[in-house]
Each structure stands twice: as C-alpha cells, then as structure tokens.
C-alpha cells in the first residue's frame, strides 16, 4: 500500500509534538510501518522530506532499531522470549515446537503472509515466564500447546485475546499506529494488571502490612 497525503499530514502532527522536528523521527517511522507493514524506501523518503534529512540519514536510524522491519511482516508477528529466564522455563521448547508446527524459522514469514516469527530478548515480564508476544501484546505463562493454539488462531483470523491488554488482538499495522502516538482508545479494555503484578499487594493486604503512617504534623518543610 502506498503512503498517502493523509500519512504526510499525520507525520506533520507528530513533528508538532516536539520542540525540535527531528525528535519525531522514531514515531514517524512507526507511522510509516503502520501503513505498509514495514519501513519501505518510500517511507524513508517521506520521513526524510518532512524533516529535511537525506534518505541515508533516515535509513541509518531505521536500521539501528530492531522494531522497524525492512521486509513486510506477517499480519500477526509472533515473538517468543528466549532470553535466559524464559528460555530456561520453557521458551526454548516453545520456540522449537512453533518452528516445527509452522515450518518457518526465526525472522521468517509464512507463505500466506499471515504470520511471522522471531525470537525476542527479555520483554520485561519475567514474572509471567514463559512469555510470548503477538504484535507486541502479552501472552503470559505459555506452553508449547497453548502457543500452537495461539498461532493456529492467528492463521485462522481468530486469535485468542492477549492475557493482558485489549479484549481482542490488534494487527501489526494497528499496533504500529499506537506506537506512533495515535491512541486507539482501547487502554481500559481487558486485564490491566495481571496476577503476578498484584501478588505482593494482595499478600500485604492479607498480612495487614502497611507503610508507616504519614504524620500530618511533623512533615518536613
């Protein structure tokens, strides 16, 4: 899909958020990706034109960051955490089983263009290990069997909802638009804080643990 005047107008909206235009480059690249599924030469050219940079300058930035894809991603982009903690708790087995199930490897896309696969580094959810991401939404506490169902659901166009976050799974392009700073109004859907996030709080309530009371009189000036 080609970029439109609308994309250009939205790039200018992004630029207006920052004191200096070039600060807008990363979200602009997310926006280009939200239109095309990857950052194409056309996307790079449009960013360069809007910011008064050369294409080489923009390309140098785009290739530094792993979230920008140079080739089209699947509609559902699956990232399996295989950093130490998830790998040890089962991420390696999950990765192996999904590779076999789909017949694709790391950084590859299924022939129907539905699904792409990548192993990812720690996604800051070790307390929910093993963790799998689809389009950067969390699927917590996974097993090889749940992830096989998950990818089958994605290919059939009926993915299960993420464990935390919106009540239905967004596409890669929709998510890229949120990353460009255009909210999709879905912030309050679904599970907000999962059980592991709240476990300490629940325990403290159960035990009656509290921080010392704040005194209203001897407060420091």
């Amino acid at each position: 899909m080609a970029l439109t005047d609308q994309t250009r107008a939205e790039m200018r909206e992004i630029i207006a958020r920052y004191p200096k235009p070039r600060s807008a480059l990363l979200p602009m690249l997310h926006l280009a990706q939200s239109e095309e599924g990857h950052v194409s030469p056309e996307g790079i050219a449009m960013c360069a034109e809007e910011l008064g940079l050369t294409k080489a300058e923009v390309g140098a930035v785009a290739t530094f960051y792993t979230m920008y894809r140079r080739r089209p991603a699947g509609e559902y982009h699956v990232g399996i955490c295989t950093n130490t903690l998830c790998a040890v708790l089962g991420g390696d087995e999950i990765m192996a089983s999904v590779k076999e199930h789909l017949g694709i490897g790391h950084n590859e896309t299924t022939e129907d263009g539905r699904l792409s696969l990548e192993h990812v580094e720690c996604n800051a959810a070790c307390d929910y290990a093993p963790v799998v991401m689809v389009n950067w939404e969390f699927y917590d506490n996974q097993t090889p069997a749940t992830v096989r169902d998950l990818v089958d659901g994605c290919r059939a166009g009926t993915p299960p909802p993420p464990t935390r976050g919106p009540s239905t799974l967004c596409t890669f392009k929709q998510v890229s638009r949120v990353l460009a700073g255009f909210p999709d109004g879905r912030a309050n859907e679904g599970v907000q804080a999962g059980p592991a996030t709240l476990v300490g709080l629940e325990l403290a309530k159960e035990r009656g643990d509290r921080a010392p009371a704040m005194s209203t009189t001897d407060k420091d000036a």
Partner: protein
Amino acid sequence: MANPHALIEGVAISSYAIRSSFAVIYVRGEIVHVIRRLQQAVLDAYAAGHLGKDIAGSGFDLDVVVHAGSGAYICGEETALLDSLEGYRGQPRLRPPFPATHGLYASPTVVNNVESIASVPAIVLGGAQWFSSMGTEKSKGFTLYSLSGHVKNPGQYEAPLGITLRQLLDLSGGMREGRTLKFWTPGGSSTPLLTEAHLDVPLDYEGVAAAGSMLGTKALQCFDDTTCVVRAVLRWTEFYAHESCGKCTPCREGTYWMVQILQRLEAGTGTEDDLATLLDTCDNIFGRSFCALGDGATSPIVSGLELFREEFLAHVTGAGCPFDPVASTVFAPAGTSA
C-alpha cells in the same frame, strides 16, 4: 499497580521543581498495552487540568509526551536515550558533559527511571522523615522487588530496602516444590550471580555491593538445581551481543566472540583453554568499554565461572551439557530429574 497516574504526578512535580515545561516518558515499544495506558493517563491528566497551560492557575505550563522506543535496550542508558529522543541512533554520548548541564537539545535535562519518579508524590506527601523511616541506614525508603524464575509465586513485591531474599522467599512461598535455589541475580543479568550462601544479604545498595554484586534493577531471577549455568550464561551473553550498540570495540567484538566460545562449550566442543580466554576477554571489556552495557556483559561470565567452574569444566570433559533442559521448564512432567 497498573495505574500510571503516580508516574504522571511525579513527572509534573519533578518538572515544576526544575521549572521545565516539557517532559517525555520514553518507554520501550515492545509493550503496547503499557503504552496505551500511559497515553490514556496523559490525556486524562490534560483533561483534568493537571497538565497543559497555566496548570491550576499557577502560571506553570507543562507538556508531556509519551514516546515509544523502537527496540534498542541500550536506550535505557541515559545519554543513548537522549540521542534516540533527538531522532538519532541510540548510542551513548561521552560524559562529561552530563545531561544535567547538556542533555536534550544540549539543554539542562533530568533523566530518571520511572520508579524513582513515581515515588516522588508519596515522598512529597509523607515528607522526607516518613520516607527515611523505611529502609536501612544508607538506603532509605521502599522499592519494588521483582521475583521471577523457579519460585512458587513470581511477581512484584514492594518492600523496604534491605529485605533479604530469604525473607522474600519465605513470604512468597519459596522455591518450587522439591527444588533448591542454585543461583540468582539481585538485579538482572548485569549484576554478578549470587547463590544460597547469599540468602541473608540485605537487598540494599551497600549490602549487595559488600557481597560482590550490585542491587541494580532488583530483578530477582531465581534458578533452581535443574538449571545449567553454562546455558544461562550463554543466553545472557547472546543478549548483550544482540544489544551492544556497536560504538566501541571491546563490547562490540568481545560480546560476539564470547558467544562463540560459550556456544561451543555448551555443545561440548570447547576446551579448558576457552575458560581462560573468556576471562581474558572479560578483562579486556570491563573498564574499557564506553558505557555500562559492556561492563555488565562480563558479570554473568566472571561470576558464573567463579561460582561454578566445575560445571563449566564438566561441559568440556563430559562432551556437552549434563542437564535435561525439560526438567527446568514450568511444564516439566512431575518427577523429571535434572
């Protein structure tokens, strides 16, 4: 715990304290539902008149932008973050000058992690005395300990600084059934590994430093006796090789080569000399790298070899890994042995 308003309030108070009218919450891009909530919270704060022009009639203006990163761990380093935020490759800057004098757009800039900023409202409300009535003599206050790995109840536990891992494990239900703690990180992989011998180390800055490690992020990753330390160290090293920004040679080349060595050790084709080569390479990275990422990359290797040299050697003499990887998974059939 999923409510970002403590952070937004902290941002507003901190900005007011330094008379800044522009603040950015830079958050990694790979966690979209967190970004949605932050965007919404900022919109809500504008709508309620807590952000924007002439806040609460004070004459003070503040704009807050939620800025999604694009997949570069190094942008957690404050100067790399600033370069990234200016629209460049996120690579660390030479310091000095420090961000406090020459930060974003070469203007004075305060860069803090969100946990610090989010604790500001409570401190302002309760006062310094209240805050420092918690914690230890030098490490005051409270913090979030993030317990993960082979524990019964992983998750976030807020506690006064100085609590020990033994206390946290006792409170939270301990290690999973029938297993013992083998090694753990006090603050993620860039902090040297500790073992059972360190269960009573107070988890404050001084206590963990005295035990030869660092408090770091308080990501308490706990591994039990089914875990192969060589495999763990290899994965961490792969992480550093992947996230090395490439600016300086010791880190860029060193992490790459250490991955090669650890891979052959894991596969059973390494030699005893490889262990010396690893330590020698770490020696050339530590203190010679441009930023803390390079130093951090040496932590799991140096501490792993110090604590578990025999296990590394067993991979050489026994032609490969003696562990069953399935036994360490959360879905291991009951009774699987290491």
